[in-house]
C-alpha cells in the first residue's frame, strides 16, 4: 500500500522570473502562452511560481494580449 507521501501529486513550477527582470510584455505571446491552460485560463501562482507582483504583471499582460486578439479568452 502506498503511503500518503507517495500519493501526493508532484507539480512542476513553470515560471523562472526574477522580480528585477523587465515588466512582462503583452506582445510576447509565446512566453505568455506557457502560463495558460489548454482552456485559456491563467495558471495559479502555485503553478507559475511567481511572486505577487510578478503574477499581477502576468495577469495584466495576458489580459491586454486577449483584448487585442493575440491570445484567446477561451480554448
Amino acid at each position, binding site marked *: 500500500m502506498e503511503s500518503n507521501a507517495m500519493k501526493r501529486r508532484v507539480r512542476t513550477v513553470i515560471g523562472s522570473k526574477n522580480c528585477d527582470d523587465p515588466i512582462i510584455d503583452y506582445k510576447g505571446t509565446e512566453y505568455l502562452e506557457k502560463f495558460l491552460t489548454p482552456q485559456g485560463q491563467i495558471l495559479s501562482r502555485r503553478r507559475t511560481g511567481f511572486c505577487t507582483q510578478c503574477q499581477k504583471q502576468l495577469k495584466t499582460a495576458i489580459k*491586454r494580449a486577449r*483584448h487585442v*486578439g493575440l491570445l484567446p479568452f477561451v480554448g
Partner: protein
Amino acid sequence: MVLLDNDVVRMDWKKAKSIVMDTVTKYDGTLKSCRRWDERRLAYPMNRKNRATFYLTYHEIPSDNIPAFRRDLELNERVLRYLILAVDEVPEEELKLAAEEDGADYMVPEPPEDDALEIPEEEDEEDVADIVGDIEAPSAVEDVDDNA
C-alpha cells in the same frame, strides 16, 4: 497599439498608416514613433475578420483629448481594436525600428487572405515521409491477410 483592417493595408499602406497618424495629430498629439508591428491571425474573429495588421505607435496627447481620441478610434470602421497604455519613455529599439520603416527601402509585405491557414515551416520532407509511411503500414498488413 491599433489593429487595422487588412483590406485597407492591401489597398494602400500609406492610407492605412495615415488613419492612425491623422487621428493623433487631430487631437494635438505628437508622434514619437510609429511602425507596423506585425500581421497576424487573430485568436478570435473581430468584425468578421480573422487577420489584422498590428500598428504600434508611441505618442503624446494632452490628457483632456484622450476621451475624444478614443471615441474617434472606436467610430472608425477600419480600426478593429485599439489599446492605449501610459509609458514612461519610448524604448530605443522602437525608435530604431520606426526609423528603418520610414526609410525608402522598406516594403510592406502584402497581407495574406483572411482565411489563409498558417502552415508551420518546421516540417521537413523526411518527417512527412515518415508520417505517410506510418499511415500506409496497416494497409500492407490487410493485403497480407487477404492473400492468406
